[in-house]
């Protein structure tokens, strides 16, 4: 056995197979061979269940790449045929593919309910949250790729460090220092003000917006829509002092801040939380101008 990098073989039918040679990059990769076997098996198993449920399958094409496994260093797409269920999401489909066909298929996910922001993929050419996208809404075959403009670490996993750096660069935390008098006094926010920042608080740090933005792709220092939106959330919060707001605007009006935005609306289009990102960026631009304009 020369398969030092292959994942441990846990699936039943493969165990009798000849040892897989990672060197072998023929027309059929070992994994495809395994897949085929699986699918043939699947057809039999499913046939009865399908007779009643009209057994549809979903054809997904998943981007595969792994610099540490010899057979996967050349990026490619793998085909999976996943039995369709009502209400199936893109995440459900890749999870099924991973659990039933190829346990080496790698992607991030956690909450499965659009809260954690870990499973933004490039689905059929646009950035979408896997767990929030219904398979039935998509054209088949469903092409699932890692987010563009971020470096791919493995399969659908991208390097998020840069995105997180940008998010932290805008100091995304409440900074009011003067606390109200009295021990149990709260820092109250007016209803109107809460309403104003409401949408901007919904960001789940999924990086879909950043990935969709051409400007962010070409300018690595650009803060990006999500970070600016974060800054908006605090800059517009009336509970913070005026100086703090000015400090925030100073960060934003730098060369790679709000002025990089060229209103493509790509981010607003893809944000799974429907945050009006472009609108927020534009409003901050106006705030930045107002701060610097003096009439005297």
């Amino acid at each position, binding site marked *: 056995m020369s398969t030092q990098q292959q994942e441990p073989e846990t699936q039943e039918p493969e165990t009798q197979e000849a040892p897989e040679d990672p060197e072998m990059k023929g027309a059929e990769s070992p994994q495809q061979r395994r897949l085929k076997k699986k699918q043939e098996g699947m057809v039999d198993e499913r046939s009865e269940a399908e007779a009643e449920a009209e057994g549809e399958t979903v054809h997904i094409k998943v981007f595969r*790449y792994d*610099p*540490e496994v010899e057979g996967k260093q050349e*990026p490619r797409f793998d085909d999976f045929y996943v039995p369709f269920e009502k209400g199936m999401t893109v995440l459900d489909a890749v999870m099924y593919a991973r659990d039933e066909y190829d346990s080496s298929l790698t992607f991030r996910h956690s909450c499965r309910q659009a809260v954690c922001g870990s499973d933004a993929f490039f689905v*059929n*050419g*646009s950035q979408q949250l896997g767990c929030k996208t219904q398979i039935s809404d998509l054209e088949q075959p469903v092409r699932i790729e890692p987010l*563009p403009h971020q*470096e*791919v*670490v*493995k399969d659908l996993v991208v*390097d998020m460090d840069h995105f997180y750096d940008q998010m932290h660069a805008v100091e995304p935390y409440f900074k009011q220092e003067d606390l109200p008098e009295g021990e149990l006094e709260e820092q109250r926010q007016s209803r109107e003000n809460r309403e104003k920042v409401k949408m901007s608080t919904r960001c789940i740090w999924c990086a879909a917006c950043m990935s969709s933005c*051409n400007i962010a*792709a070409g300018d690595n220092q650009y803060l990006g829509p999500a970070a600016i939106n974060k800054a908006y959330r605090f800059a517009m919060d009336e509970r913070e002092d005026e100086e703090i707001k000015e400090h925030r605007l100073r960060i934003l009006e730098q060369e790679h801040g709000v002025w990089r935005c*060229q*209103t*493509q*609306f*790509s981010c*607003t*289009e893809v944000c799974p939380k429907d945050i*009006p990102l*472009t*609108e927020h960026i*534009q*409003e901050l*631009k*106006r705030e930045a101008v107002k701060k610097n304009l003096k009439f005297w």
Partner: protein
Amino acid sequence: MSQSYNRGLIEDYGRWKEFSAGMWAWIFHKFTGWMLIGYLFTHIAVLSTAIGAAQGETVEVFAEDLPNVEGTGLTEVDIYTATLGGLEGLFIVRLLEVGLLAVAVFHILNGLRLLMVDLGIGLEAQDKSFYASLILTGVITVASVPTFLRGVGF
């Protein structure tokens, strides 16, 4: 850490079918902007060949060749008239003029749209205003054809 795989910029153009209205507006705005800059310099270069007109420099041309010259046969006209007449006599230049109008009109209309976007007016309708500027550009361009192509097909 493993090294990671960068897919490069190909995907930017590869996904053009999925571009949304705002993205197209951005691309067209850039494109028309560059076209206008290119036109500006061509314009300067071409007109500078006729600088001598103010000093009374003249050339001899066949009046039939130039739409803006009266008479027949070899005539002496000033160099500016000859330059412009020579250009206007070419079908391709007339066609390019229509193109220039289309480019300029789109750039103006989309510029107004961007002004609205900057002022925060009607951001929800940004895609509709893009389509509107496209349609308006088309209408104005088509309407201009009889004027621009007069004498060379109309």
